[in-house]
């Protein structure tokens, strides 16, 4: 397989802020890679460098085999970009926006018209096509934004948090559209803060923190990296907690954890469902009342927390890193 995106050793700083600390990235043609990371981890900066909007301080990158630093114009002919913030003109209608971008992609007047109509239909915006987009809902605006990035039939698509601020239904709609594009062979680099989104769309996930890649792999690989399955037990009586932990210890493949407040015992195990059968039998023999017991596979949330949580501990000594505020920036 050929690589649609290759980046090596990308660094970028803004004043004192080191936004990127040497990012290496590869995306196979026709696949989706999810770039995951907390606020300020460098997702947008990476996308902006790859989409020719920003020059890296050092390192190099190619998109569609073309060097982004030396031939940005040629890169622009094969990419589409949907930025984190809506990039359409509020005073124009949906159709006027798409036709404008089509013309600026150097389609002929008639081609631009046809392409705009195609995209409006595809994105279910026909009814609103001739209305000013001031009156569009957040979901419609996002769809129009995505449509605009497809105007030139790009082979590589950059999506920076495409579903941030959307309700679950609009988000699902967006996912369907993205899956459709991938089925047609488009390569997608997607940034997101939603692990569910990366899990659903991306075949590979790259986790960023403080401008560095801290983990990468398929969603399963990442989950395994955090640890395999674990038993989550909740006992009925809190006085049983200590005995329950002792009972599970022989089965555990690593350290057990007790969360007293919720009467919970966590035990990492290997052996899947056999382990849970074994656990239930032993607990029963020990006369411990079980309120709830489950075998849980780690979610990407666990991956994320364990990976970035570790880094956050290190950072606690120093001043808080910029860009690590809790909430999202503006509602767009």
């Amino acid at each position, binding site marked *: 397989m050929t690589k649609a995106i290759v980046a090596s050793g990308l660094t970028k700083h803004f004043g004192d802020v080191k936004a990127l600390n040497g990012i290496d990235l590869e995306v196979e043609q026709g696949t989706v890679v999810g770039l995951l990371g907390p606020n300020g981890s460098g997702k947008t900066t990476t996308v902006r460098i790859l989409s020719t*909007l920003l020059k890296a301080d050092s390192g190099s990158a190619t998109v569609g085999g073309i060097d982004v630093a030396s031939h940005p*114009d040629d890169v622009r002919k094969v990419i*589409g970009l949907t930025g984190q*913030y809506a*990039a359409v003109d509020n005073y124009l209608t949906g159709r006027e926006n798409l036709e404008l971008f089509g013309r*600026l992609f150097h389609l002929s007047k008639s081609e631009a018209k046809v392409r705009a109509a195609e995209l409006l239909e595809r994105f279910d915006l026909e009814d609103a096509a001739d209305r000013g987009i001031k009156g569009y809902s957040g979901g419609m605006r996002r769809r129009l934004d995505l449509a605009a990035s497809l105007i030139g039939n790009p082979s590589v698509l950059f999506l920076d948090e495409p579903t941030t601020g959307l309700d679950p239904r609009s988000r699902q709609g967006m996912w369907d559209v993205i899956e459709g594009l991938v089925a047609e062979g488009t390569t997608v680099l997607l940034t997101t803060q939603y692990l569910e989104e990366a899990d659903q769309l991306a075949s590979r996930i790259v986790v960023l923190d403080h401008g560095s890649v801290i983990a990468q792999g398929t969603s399963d690989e990442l989950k395994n990296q955090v640890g395999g399955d674990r038993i989550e037990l909740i006992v009925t009586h809190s006085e049983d907690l200590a005995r329950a932990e002792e009972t599970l210890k022989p089965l555990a493949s690593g350290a057990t954890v007790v969360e007293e407040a919720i009467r919970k015992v966590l035990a990492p195990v290997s052996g899947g469902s056999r382990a849970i059968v074994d656990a239930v039998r032993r607990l029963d023999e020990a006369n411990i009342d079980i309120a709830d017991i489950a075998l849980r596979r780690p979610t990407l949330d666990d991956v994320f927390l364990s990976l970035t949580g570790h880094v956050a501990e290190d950072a606690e000594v120093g001043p808080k890193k910029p860009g690590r505020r809790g909430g999202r920036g503006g509602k767009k």
Partner: protein
Amino acid sequence: MTTITPTSERSSFVWLFFDTLAVTKRHILKITRVPESLFFSLIQPVMFVLLFAFVFGGAINVGPGGAQSYREYLIPGIFAQTVMFATAGITVAISYDAQLGIMDRFRSLPMSPGAVLGGHTLANLVQNILVLVVLSITGFAVGWRIHGSIADAATAYVLMGLFAYAVTWIGAWVGLKMPNPEVASTAGLAWLFPLTFASNIFTPVSTMPGWLQPIALWNPVSCIALSARKLFGNPTPGLGSTFPETHTVLLTFIYAVAIIAIFAPLAVRAFKQNSSGGKA
């Protein structure tokens, strides 16, 4: 689907032209969608004319004609002031574009990089021409007259259009250098005030303190106003024999060309480098 003409030196100029037209169309559409903004950009200079013509007209003496000759003196000054202050609008508009992320979309397209600003400035020129027409009519209503030849008057209008177009490039550059529209709206005015008021637009240079006179004489804003007064045959009280007073039209033309030659490349470079990334 995607028909791309290979980039050669010639075709990039052709694309600059077509892309500029496409972006200009965007802005013209925008003007029609928000007529209020055009309305207020028209009403403001009209109010200036009425205010100065009737409120201060009697107090400022520029010649034997009294208030009437002040009005004839004033209107070309208001022309100059108006085209100067119109640049504040482009400064804010460009800053908004950058904040909304639409600049990023433009910069990720294989379009001509000069076209975004080219379209902005061209649309601004169209708006300026409209404003000059309305101002001329208002001026006529309060007693301003063209006394020179038609050719001279046409030269005056062309020169004002050129000058107006030139200074919008300064406005565009300032807009791209500012971090957000709020700052841009103050910065966009900050440089205009000294430049516009240390000039002959409201009072003759000869009435100013001695140290200010050479500055006011060479000020491009004075030059465009004086050029218009000369070409329209309006009063030019206290006219001396320094170079800006004897070669006013030539100097104004040089100023306009020089401003474009300096600020258009600066602004296009700022546009290419602008990395605010749509962040507020």
